[in-house]
């Protein structure tokens, strides 16, 4: 009788385990691969005609060009993307000194053009990844300062407007911001506490455990910001890169940069920020922070989206 009971329990446990496991990642077919799209925005504000003319920035256009080149090289080497076309998947929106722009040029990074471009991305597939990179000024509330346009003077893209523009884009969205106060673009999350700002982490963490009305961790929006909500982002002052973007580029595998005949060329290797053969948002962020000069990490406090999820950008 005892043996029968024992055997019945073993069989029951095995059936339960099989049913349990059959509904997890190990047995359910994975979603199909999507592609990656990037809008790389760099603004130097040299043509600004508004009343409050912002200071010109020397590294922002270089930042945006290098980021798009880095993503192009990585996307072409990656094995986790379905189809990738440099012409349609990499979009540079630049405003740089010495170039003349017409009002109808869709690659000019005015507020309207940026939001229009995001509107076009609403036709993406649900398995795609859309990356929005921005290098430029940020206002004290985190609002991004687009390029000057006579028809939209002193225009800003607030964190709320950006979120609203992104929410209807299918698939995963990655926002990488190298601008002052860019931490304001990271949605509030009550499931975790920030160890950098919490004065009583133990108490705050347990308070969050009992929090009933919590924000749901998003599996579709991933944000990396060069600065926290109340800190500025810096560039060295020459025509290099912003400190944060330079570290991101190192993480993406930018190993050499030469300027020949006014054109910058880039060389890439396997991204050092990879963990094995996978490049994730958390991996890229932690590598970038480790590569940044310590004094600028303290000055800027780069931030990462909070919550449960991490995202695979590329697999090689």
């Amino acid at each position, binding site marked *: 009788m005892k043996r029968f009971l024992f055997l019945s329990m073993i069989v029951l446990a095995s059936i339960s385990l099989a049913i*349990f496991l059959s*509904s*997890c*990642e*190990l047995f*359910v077919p*994975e*979603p199909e691969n*999507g592609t990656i799209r990037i809008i790389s925005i760099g603004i130097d504000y040299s043509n600004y005609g508004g009343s409050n003319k912002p200071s010109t920035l020397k590294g922002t256009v270089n930042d945006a060009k290098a980021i798009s080149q880095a993503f192009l090289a990585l996307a072409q080497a990656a094995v*986790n993307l379905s189809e990738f076309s440099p012409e349609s998947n990499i979009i540079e929106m630049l405003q740089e000194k010495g170039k003349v722009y017409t009002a109808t040029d869709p690659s000019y990074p005015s507020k309207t053009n940026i939001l229009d471009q995001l509107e076009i991305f609403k036709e993406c597939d649900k*398995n795609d*990844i859309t990356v929005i990179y921005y290098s430029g000024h940020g206002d004290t509330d985190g609002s991004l300062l687009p390029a000057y346009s006579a028809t939209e003077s002193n225009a800003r893209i607030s964190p709320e407007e950006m979120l609203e523009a992104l929410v209807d884009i299918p698939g*995963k969205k990655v926002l990488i911001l190298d601008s002052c106060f860019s931490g304001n673009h990271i949605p509030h999350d*009550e*499931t*975790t*506490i*920030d*160890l*950098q700002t*919490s004065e009583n*982490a*133990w108490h*705050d*963490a*347990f308070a*969050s*455990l009992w*929090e009933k009305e*919590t924000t*749901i*961790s*998003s*599996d*579709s929006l991933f944000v990396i910001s060069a600065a926290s909500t109340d800190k500025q982002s810096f560039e060295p002052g020459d025509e290099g890169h912003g400190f944060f973007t330079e570290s991101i580029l190192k993480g993406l595998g930018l190993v050499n940069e030469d300027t020949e005949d006014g054109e910058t060329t880039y060389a890439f290797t396997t991204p050092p920020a990879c963990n094995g053969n996978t490049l994730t948002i*958390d*991996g890229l*962020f*932690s590598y970038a*922070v480790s590569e940044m000069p310590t004094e600028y990490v303290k000055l800027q406090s780069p931030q*990462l*989206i*909070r*919550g*449960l*999820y*991490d*995202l*695979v*950008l590329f697999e090689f």
Partner: protein
Amino acid sequence: MYHRLRHIGLTFLSLVMLTILPLHANAAWTSGISLSSSYSAAIPTSSGLADQESLPFRSQAAVQIDMAPLSLRIGSVTFGGELWLKYTSRSIYWGNTFYRPFWAIGPAASIHIQINDSIGLQVAGTALFCWYDPAQQAFAAIDVMAAPTFRLGSMVHNVFELTSPIRFEFRNQILAVQVGIGLRWYYNISQAMDDATQMRSR
């Protein structure tokens, strides 16, 4: 004033218990450590999270060290204060997202009941402080465990046991059910001290 009195009272009571309880005929102090690894199924408990998840749960692995520097055994029951250190791996990739890996640490209270010479049952509970490393974010979890133990053997004052812990980890929006296997070692301090005393008096 009330708080100070309460603290003094609790400290006094603890000292009395610690002094009197070992005087029990079958009382002994032990010290031990256990190492276990588990499969963890992270199940969304909030409807919002469950709605956006395409899987009913995500699979993670967990490795845990439970340190029990001093436990009191009275008869067949052992009471222990433990320190748990735990690492939960990232979940298996699903599409292009996965749950972040995290570390956890916390003090635990444990009771082990020896049912017969070879089989026992351990139950324990803790409040864990957990953190995601690169993101510099923290959260808390309540962890309760039940683990049947099977004595593998003993050597002088050392006892080795096989355990199969089942854990329920309650986090905000997530319930993680963990099933694992591990090894538990403990050292009988009282018996070792008795033996040492006897050796000296010979």
